[in-house]
């Protein structure tokens, strides 16, 4: 059989290397488009052949690599990873199209970095060996670091370094957790293995409760910094805001932190020494992020920074839903990752377009843009509505599932999250009113609406937001299958 997962991971990495050698913008963007479309086609092929009724890993590939340390080249994808690979595969070609007519320095390196990020991120979702997982995990850092530090805004150096060091430290803590798991299992079984499914299933047999909790917390820390949630979010607004538009979209595609929560944290959770404490930590961080991010977004004057903080708020749902431990809430949290990826990519594209044409993103300096940019206005209103959780759009499916599902076990945290909904509506609607509606601010000069490529890419993603808002099943079914499996583990342990 075709090693399809390897292809999906390696094609973008290979093309990234090739793109470096292109001379012109035209060559670079074509290379990038070819690679991302190839990934999309392969991913769709894989998606069609994916069985969403089973929770097992599918399309597995396994080759021995370093047997003495138990390292294998092991790829596979389940209902947790599949939707996220799909998300990346769908958005990336449109991201390339979105940047089609842009002029910037070193386009060959720019597109190479986009492709490298895509390969690395998909690699994380496909890896079933912790060694491979960690390599891909760290590999995502490097292209994003350069993306911000080369093409970023005025504060790019500070933002890039902060992002790198902050999340790198978190990765090291996560690595500690992986080692803890690896060596503990090695001691018990006598054979080394870095295989993710094997290690996850051996966690429960670790004798020391303290060790189990330390491993768990180290892994959890690594993941939540990457999501990010309160109080470990402070790298995120800087990085998201200073990054060029494409970089911000890539950050949004970087759903590896949340993926780790579902793939690693939840299967381990019932076997920790103090599962209830862990649930409380997760729920509290999730709920606080939701309301904290919302208030912070309200306080921002920069449109893009507002969107960045709204992302903190939305990501809180991922953690809250995961901690809710009902299949509806867990699958809702997974769906939130998928939906948030779609919504935020348009949000950042809109911020980018406005910044380019108006020369500013300060909300109060804008005004009346809808008169000059009617196409952008339609897409923006729809996306803002999706972002504030309007039914009929994908964000609502995620939020209502998380809220309703989590209330069963975590009522007080859900009430905190509910309080944030009005604030969330407020900053979205208020920003729209000030930036898009009202009297046009003549000081902005000539304003041009989005071009054909931008309309196409934003429009199609917007249509997907509507589509998944009415018919979430194509991705939600597989999420449900895996959530139910996770929950059945909980039930066995009586959590």
């Amino acid at each position, binding site marked *: 059989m075709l090693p399809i997962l390897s292809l999906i991971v390696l094609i973008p990495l290979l093309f990234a290397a090739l793109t470096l050698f292109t001379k012109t913008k035209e060559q670079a963007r074509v290379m990038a488009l070819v690679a991302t479309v190839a990934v999309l086609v392969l991913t769709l092929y894989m998606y069609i052949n994916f069985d969403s009724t089973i929770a097992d890993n599918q399309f597995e590939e396994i080759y021995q690599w370093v047997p003495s340390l138990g390292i294998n080249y092991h790829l596979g994808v389940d209902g947790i990873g599949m939707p996220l690979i799909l998300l990346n595969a769908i958005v990336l070609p449109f991201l390339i199209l979105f940047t089609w007519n842009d002029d910037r320095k070193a386009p060959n390196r720019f597109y190479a970095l986009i492709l490298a990020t895509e390969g690395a991120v998909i690699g994380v979702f496909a890896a079933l060996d912790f060694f491979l997982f960690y390599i891909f995990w760290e590999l995502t850092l490097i292209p994003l*670091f350069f993306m911000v530090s080369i093409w970023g805004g005025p504060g790019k150096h500070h933002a890039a370094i902060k992002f790198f060091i902050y999340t*790198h430290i978190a990765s090291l803590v996560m690595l*500690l957790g992986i080692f803890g798991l690896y*060596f*503990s299992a090695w001691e018990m079984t006598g054979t080394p293995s870095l295989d993710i499914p094997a290690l996850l299933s051996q966690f429960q047999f670790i004798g020391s409760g303290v060790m189990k909790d*330390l491993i768990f917390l180290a892994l959890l820390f690594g993941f939540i910094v990457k999501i990010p949630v309160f109080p470990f979010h*402070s790298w995120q607004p800087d990085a998201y805001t200073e990054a060029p538009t494409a970089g911000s979209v890539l950050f949004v595609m970087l759903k590896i932190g949340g993926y780790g929560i579902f793939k690693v944290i939840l299967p381990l959770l019932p076997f920790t020494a103090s599962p209830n404490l862990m649930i409380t930590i997760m729920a509290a961080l999730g709920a606080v992020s939701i309301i904290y991010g919302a208030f*912070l977004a309200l306080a921002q004057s920069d449109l893009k920074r507002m969107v960045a903080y709204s992302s903190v708020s939305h990501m809180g749902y991922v953690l809250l839903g995961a901690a809710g431990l009902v299949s509806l809430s867990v699958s809702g949290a997974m769906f939130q990752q998928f939906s948030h990826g779609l919504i935020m990519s348009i949000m950042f594209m809109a911020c980018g377009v406005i910044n380019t044409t108006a020369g500013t993103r300060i909300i109060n300096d804008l005004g009346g843009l809808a008169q000059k940019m009617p196409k952008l206005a339609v897409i923006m209103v729809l996306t803002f509505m999706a972002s504030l959780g309007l039914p009929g759009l994908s964000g609502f499916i995620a939020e209502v599932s998380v809220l309703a599902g989590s209330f069963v076990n975590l009522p007080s945290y859900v009430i905190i999250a509910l309080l944030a909904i009005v604030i969330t509506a407020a900053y979205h609607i208020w920003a729209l009113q000030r930036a898009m509606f*009202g009297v046009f601010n003549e000081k902005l000069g000539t304003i041009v609406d989005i071009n054909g490529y931008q309309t196409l890419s934003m429009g199609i993603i917007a249509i997907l937001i509507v589509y998944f808002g009415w018919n979430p099943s194509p991705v939600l079914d597989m999420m449900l299958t895996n959530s139910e499996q996770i929950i059945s583990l909980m039930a066995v342990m009586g959590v």
Partner: protein
Amino acid sequence: MAIGDLAFLIPLLPALAFVLTFFLGKKLPNGGAIIPIAAITISFVISLLITMNLLQNPEEVINQSYSWFAILNIGVLVDPLAAVMLTMVSLVSLLIHIYSVGYMSHDRSQSRYFAETALFTASMLGLALSDNILQLFICWELVGVCSYLLIGFWYEKPSASSAAKKAFLTTRVGDVMFLAGIVILFSDLFRIFNGTIPDGVYILRFDEIFTHIPEIAAMNANILGMEVSHITIITLLFFGGAIGKSGQFPLHVWLPDAMEGPTTVSALIHAATMVTAGVYLVARTFPMFMAAPSSLLVVAYLGAFTAIFAATMGIVMNDLKRVLAYSTISQLGYMMLGLGVGAAIGAEAVGISIFHLINHAFFKALLFLCAGSVIHAVGTHDMRQLGGVAKVMPITAVTMIIAAFSLAGFGIPDTIFGFSGFFSKDPIIESAYLFGSSSGMWIPYLLSITAALLTSLYIFRLVFMTFFGKPRTDYGGHESPASMTVPLSILALLALVAGALTRTTFYEFVSETFVNDFVQMDIPALADIGGYHLASHAGHEPMLILWMPLIVAVAGLLVSYLIYGLKVVNMDSLVSRNNPVYKLLYNRYYQNAIYTDFLSVKVIYEGFAFAGHAIDRGFDWTVNWISDLMIESGEALRQFQTGVIQTYATAVIAGVGLLIVLIKVVMEVI
């Protein structure tokens, strides 16, 4: 094929019309108005046929449910309550659409207008035929967003985009309460099923919810030391949603501002598509309210209070549309009161309240469309500049006066002579009396009868100031075209006779909503759970009580005739800005200042958001401080600042080596 199989088309056709008009409308004459008009016409015909069929075969309640995602469903439920609602919404919306062709003919964004009103109508129709509470909520939110778009239709006007924002955010406060109610309800049902829901059971479907009312009522939560039943919490949260959507005190503030949109939009919002949603929600979930201790009392008191509260402000407004807006709030209060008195009269309350909803839709749509006709012709909505309009616009004047009589509730008790509004408002006031006499709680009755006096006063003030006397300014004007006067005449006919013709049939029909093959509710048993004592409604009110609504209506008419018709009192001296009562009313009890200036700006924006901002700066500062400390403390680490990636790679490898050693040590210790 039975007509019921087509029920799903009722909201779907206008939704399709939205898509078509949105993309193709610009290329068609009149902004593609024909598309939504055709779609809504078909929706109306289907609704009407279904209603006729249900009248003859009450057992043929339509219910179709399909799995949606996870354990949730989407579906269609057309029982008597939904049927009358669908018929009214599609009819009123259709007439408003036809009227809009003329009214909006000069606007260059016509196609956007018709697309948005089509979606507005589709959402409301979808809301009415939902078979589960989540779908109702979804349509409820879509209604909200459409109103946002339409109130802000002229978005380049700052006042319009500001009013749109206000409407969206104010109703959002209610929506969150509604959502919270759904979330609690879901988790209660989830527990009742012990987390395993059988295939084919959709727990948020109304029949499923109603079946489990006693179990939900038995659950208690401790709030501030009080044991409160979950059913009370859930119903009050639902009512919170209704307060926002149906403009009840204290969330009514958005409704008077909502007239920033085209007048036809106001007509849609006030009559058919938006504000009635809250009343409909309470009616739809009435069995839950029946079983919820104190919830119905809250509904009754708040409804009666809103009725009089809004009427007091209606008296002092000088803007034609604002008077009507406060009138809507007040009348919605009556509808809520009508539901609240279910505490005394049981399920009959749904019948009288929804009857008022329907009649109100007709005469309020008429009032707004007449106002629109006047504004369209003379170009102002300040009543102080009008006067004598009846001479130039006779059709508009006559239809508006019919609507005014209907609103004021003119009619002769115990006969079939009366305007539509009489046959629905009168029973509500009478039921409030019955509620008072059976429970000793007289306040709702007293408020509602006083509000009836004020209603008559403000609406005839409007009529005299606008249509009679001498023109106060030279406004020109002419009668509106037929596409506008024909819908006016149809609505006027409905406001004139609909009530008299349908009243008995209507009550019987709608009261069957909760007893059929979809749900079988034992209302007295539910009333026992809720602790309500149902009184028999045998009509032995004293003669004076029976005639009281008419007496106050006539009194209101006479007073406004004396003041605004004959001008026996000089109002200008009375309404000076120094009169504290006038000031209080004219400034709308200063609610704007409290909500916008204080609560939103001072507390939430300047308080919480900036406090959060400061905290966040603190976090950021700490992070930067730690990293600076690290950078400064290590000579070798200075290379960080060069940003050379090899340095990091080396650091990573070195770090990893160190960690392996560390973890070995830790393992030994543990």
